[in-house]
């Protein structure tokens, strides 16, 4: 295998990881600050993909599509937070899982009602189709590169927001001690709604970028949600930095496994056995990694500070 191929697969892994990061960031924020397990996060991802794909197809403008998807997700985020989640903050995690799982069922059937049960196929905007020469003779799809750039930019903004701004300070205060922060006059209710809307917008961004790569269909958020949970467990619950490192780790390991595991196995076993074992092992790889990391560091790679 050439080094160029390894580089290309590395980029593929980073691109997948970036999409996971946008999903995991919202999930880990909501968990870290509100101590809420939100299975409905995948639904916002799905709605983001649906709204962007259908608006883009109807108007022909990807900007309108993105704006509509983000706006829709923020509205959904605020609605769901005020109507459903406020009743759940003081409940056990099991209650939260049950209620938010119910929400995913509602959303999965809701999109069928609105958009029909046939999957949508989102188009890549014309200016992002084609390839870019990263190195001489090394072409990479423009759209995939755009995902990496957008994801990195959002990640940088997010860390700035949390580390350097007043809102970020309040978020950190709320995360480390909710009661004291409230006693000091911070409007915790408003802060929660804000964090929730932010998480929803990030999920929708991930979903709308995933639209042309994965198929826009009912239930599309469920499979990526599982990976996002793997990411936040590996990264340490509540930690944005952990989520970033862990998503790149998961993205790269998954892609490398799919790309190279079969040929590596073929070196030590019969090719027909490797044909079967390679893909099977590749799909398990990230879970194996998660098990090992949890064994060595049960609190994850970058645990949020203890409350």
């Amino acid at each position, binding site marked *: 295998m*050439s080094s160029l191929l390894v580089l290309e697969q590395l980029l*593929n892994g980073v691109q997948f990881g970036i999409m996971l990061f946008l999903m995991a960031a919202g999930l880990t924020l909501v968990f870290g600050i509100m101590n809420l397990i939100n299975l409905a996060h995948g639904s916002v991802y799905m709605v983001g993909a649906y709204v962007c794909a259908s608006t883009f197809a109807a108007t022909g403008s990807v900007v309108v599509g993105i704006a509509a998807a983000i706006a829709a997700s923020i509205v959904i985020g605020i609605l769901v937070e005020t109507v459903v989640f406020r009743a759940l903050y003081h409940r056990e995690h099991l209650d939260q899982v049950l209620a938010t799982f119910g929400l995913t069922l509602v959303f999965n059937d809701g999109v069928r009602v609105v958009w029909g049960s046939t999957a949508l196929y989102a188009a890549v905007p014309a200016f992002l189709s084609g390839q870019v020469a990263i190195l001489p003779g090394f072409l990479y799809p423009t759209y995939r590169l755009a995902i990496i750039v957008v994801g990195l930019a959002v990640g940088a903004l997010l860390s700035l927001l949390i580390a350097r701004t007043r809102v970020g300070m309040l978020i950190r205060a709320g995360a480390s001690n909710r009661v004291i922060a409230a006693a000091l006059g911070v409007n915790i209710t408003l802060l929660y709604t804000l964090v929730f809307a932010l998480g929803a917008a990030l999920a929708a961004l991930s979903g709308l970028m995933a639209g042309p790569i994965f198929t826009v269909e009912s239930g599309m958020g469920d499979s990526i949600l599982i990976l996002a949970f793997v990411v936040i467990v590996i990264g340490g619950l509540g930690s944005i930095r952990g989520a970033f490192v862990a998503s790149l780790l998961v993205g790269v390991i998954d892609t490398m496994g799919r790309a190279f595991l079969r040929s590596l196995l073929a070196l030590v076993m019969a090719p027909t056995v490797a044909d079967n074992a390679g893909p099977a092992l590749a799909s398990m790889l990230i879970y194996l990694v998660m098990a090992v990391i949890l064994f060595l560091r049960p609190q994850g790679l970058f645990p949020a500070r203890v409350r």
Partner: protein
Amino acid sequence: MRASLIAAAAALALVAGPVLGADKIKIGFVTTLSGPEAVMGNPMRDSADLALDMLGGKIGGVPAEIVYGDDQQKPDVGRQIIEKFLEKDRVDFITGILGSNVLLAIYQPVIKSKTIIISANSGPHQIAGEMCSPYFFSTATQNDEGAEAMGQYMTDAKITDVYAMAPNYAAGKDMIAGFKRNFKGNISAEVYTTFGQHDYQAEISQIRAANPKAVFVFYPGGMGIQFVKQYAEAGLKDKIQLYSIYTADEAAIPALQDAAAGNYTAGNWSADLDTPRSRAYVAAFRKKYGYTPANYGADSFDAIFLIDSAVKAVKGDLADKKALIAAMAKADFPSVRGDLSYNVNHFPIENFYLFKIVKDGESYALKPEHTIFTNYKDSYAKDCKMPAVE
């Protein structure tokens, strides 16, 4: 007491089976009507509806009804639908069936119930060979055949160094096995991906690095749409010729558009196949539904007419299974592919064509370029010891 006896009697009368000279025929139609594979299931349902319309709502002169079930491409959901068809709807025929995983799961219960089942798409090799049954018919193809045709064509065209890919499930394995049966050139890699995978960037990077002379894939429905689109996105479309089966077809073209242009595919039918029956079917279908049917639709259209021909031949006497099956085996119906006949395993003996996807006005079409096989028989019929009908 008396009232409850009467109620019980009435209930019994309600569940009693179809009597001699049925006064109503029910057809259970199971296919995938939701999710990414619905692009193939929708034309199947629409074609069956169209066929019943053209028959004036009657099968063999008997008023008929088609009940639909959405298997969501899941074998267990398919099983539940079949149970409902057999026990609640008490259907006389079962047809449709998009996925081989679903067909293999429902096959035994249907055969045991002695209900006639007509596959309008899936054709796993087990059913064509040692597991063959008189109660099973296909109006489509045995899975391997399209791939065998493509393998034959690529051998004839002296193409070698081929990179082969398919999803890791029953039909995927059949397709690659079929391709290898007739392909005499060198296969540089044989890659199986997870069923239902949609992001192929990692695999496409591997193809680019391997730089083969040609790529052969079987990615039905949503998987194919993503693969062919991403293959074009990666800039490989014009560099390494893509040959596919059941991948870049009429079901996928609305989503693929230019990404499919120039690809080759092989099969038993395309909407541009020039037979009078096919032209009439495609015209009626487009008029009613506003889109172009793929081969999944054409084979479903044929399935309804096959049932019609057999019911007509036995004059509506559905109880005589032996006569009904004998009538079906004659394939005495006007197929969209011209005249068909049945092999010993109840799979059609038919032609296979090479299609090229070309721009046709505003849309794209599968233009027949070349007849690869004439009156082709599948490779598993020799393993079929067809049991007698009891």
